[in-house]
């Protein structure tokens, strides 16, 4: 609320307060978030090795045309699509089912919840290293387990199985997070609605299909949103598990960017990749919020961001 009109000195004091309180956050944010993103956009139009101040060798859109023509980029996009589809069609329904299960009054559900969410707290590096040992071809634990059924897999070492294996690890680590979101969403639905449906004679499935699921709509849409945004930037797990291999068969855009930016010092070209990632996230976010989440948003942008 606005205070009553104040004399000039008091108003100056007010502005001083506003400036002093905002300054630290604003400086940090402009310097380390906004400026780097602008520089990335700028550098994507140059041939640049990252040295000697700002880039000077302007080449227009050459970095982008080169990028769009490469096999690796096409593969990156394909991997993104595969992971998004697997997440949306398998991981999220699975999380939803488990959330509905843990919403029942069963003994020990607090403990189940605690355990299912625990992998989310472990770092991607711990998860990655652990599963690279478990999934190692030959005598890894997963193969010892599968040998009971007489089958064996190369998992991460085989281009045909690397993506499902990667997805398995992602599910291990992240389904608990989505489960928690669904549980929170479910708890916001008044139980009276569910009970009313049951009294009217609806079966459990019908109650879920026609009452719970529609009311969970906003929650599900946000969970899909977070999952897609995260997958666009996927880096840590892939870097640790496969490094993008074997022969680029699990590479993501962020991995390609790191390869070119830090291993080959083609900072201009790598910046072009990062700009594509940025534009992809932004376009997805805008389109998704405009067409899918529009009913859910009351003037606020809702994400918890890709950072976690």
């Amino acid at each position, binding site marked *: 609320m606005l205070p009553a009109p104040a004399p000039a000195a008091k108003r100056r004091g007010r502005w001083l307060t506003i400036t002093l309180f905002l300054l630290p956050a604003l400086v940090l944010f402009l310097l380390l978030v906004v400026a780097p993103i602008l520089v990335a956009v700028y550098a994507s139009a140059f041939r640049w090795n990252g040295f000697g101040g700002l880039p000077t060798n302007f080449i227009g859109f050459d970095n982008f045309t080169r990028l769009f023509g490469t096999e690796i980029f096409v593969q990156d996009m394909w991997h993104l699509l595969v992971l998004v589809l697997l997440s949306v069609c398998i991981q999220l329904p699975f999380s939803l089912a488990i959330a509905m299960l843990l919403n029942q009054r069963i003994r020990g559900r607090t403990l189940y919840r605690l355990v299912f969410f625990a992998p989310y707290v472990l770092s991607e590096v711990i998860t990655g290293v652990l599963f690279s040992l478990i999934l190692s071809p030959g005598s890894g634990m997963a193969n010892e387990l599968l040998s009971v059924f007489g089958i064996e897999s190369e998992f991460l070492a085989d281009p045909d199985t690397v993506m499902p294996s990667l997805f398995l690890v992602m599910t291990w680590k992240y389904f608990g997070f989505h489960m928690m979101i669904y549980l929170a969403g479910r708890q916001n639905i008044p139980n009276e609605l569910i009970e009313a449906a049951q009294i009217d004679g609806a079966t459990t499935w019908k109650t879920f299909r026609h009452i719970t699921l529609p009311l969970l709509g906003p929650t599900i849409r946000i969970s899909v949103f977070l999952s897609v945004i995260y997958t666009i930037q996927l880096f840590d797990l892939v870097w640790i598990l496969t490094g993008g291999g074997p022969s680029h068969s699990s590479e993501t855009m962020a991995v390609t960017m790191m390869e070119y930016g830090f291993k080959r010092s083609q900072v201009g070209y790598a910046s072009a990749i990062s700009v594509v*990632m940025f534009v992809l996230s932004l376009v997805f976010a805008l389109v998704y919020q405009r067409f899918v989440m529009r009913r859910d948003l009351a003037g606020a942008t809702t*994400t918890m961001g890709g950072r976690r």
Partner: protein
Amino acid sequence: MIHRKKSQPRATTLPLHAIAWIVGAFILVPVVYALLGGFKENSELSTNPFGLPETWVTANYTDVLGSGSFWLQMWNSTFIAVVTTVLTVGFAALAGFIFARYAFRGREALFTLFTAGLMFPFAVAILPIFVLLRTFGLLDNPLGVILTQAAFGLPLTIIILRGFFRSIPGEIEEAAIIDGCTPFGFFWRILLPMARPAIATVSVLAIVGSWNNFMLPLVVFSEEASWTLPLGIQQFQGQYASDTARILAYLVLAMVPALGFYAIAERHLVGGLTAGATKG
């Protein structure tokens, strides 16, 4: 009504428990495998992957605990997480206070700028940040990681804190001002203590985010002395590639702080994440 509810599920919970147990096994088996594997000889890992160790070899664990580098990485991770959290929450609280309680020209534009920060993926900025930190001589300096993490943590923290600050009645502020409180005095002595639950939530989020961060330390730290735990684990795996049991022991010990913290702060962590996801 209540009676019906209590008696009805009894017949049906068995399959639910069965499913929960299968999912629980999916989650726990890898972790238990690592825990037990750390006590085994390497040769035993393939002959007896799931059973208890034939002889409990403690050397893998004690070697890691006796090595200076493990504790150094632990210290680096802790130091970076704590300072990051103090800076993120401190700066975000100051800004959130202004956004919540002062009306001024350009406020909405500034606030939108910060919220837009949620849409900026960290990976996009990593190359320019690297160049920037190198220019300032902040490579291999914890400050390089701390400041960058704090900057990227600001948007979500400001949004959550602003929402909380808004819910505190304006009468309290008026009363404080009449009693001669300065704006900072009100912020420091009244608002922050009242916002303790929200502060706890955003702090937990900042700590976990910093503790698990990999990409930024990976590019900023090249000297072993400044490595954080994730970098150390990755390096350890490379160094002892064939000594699986030793790597498992290292992993288990590296999990302990994260899981311990989770056990303590579970409520705040889950509350913060779901609030961040569903309310923004």
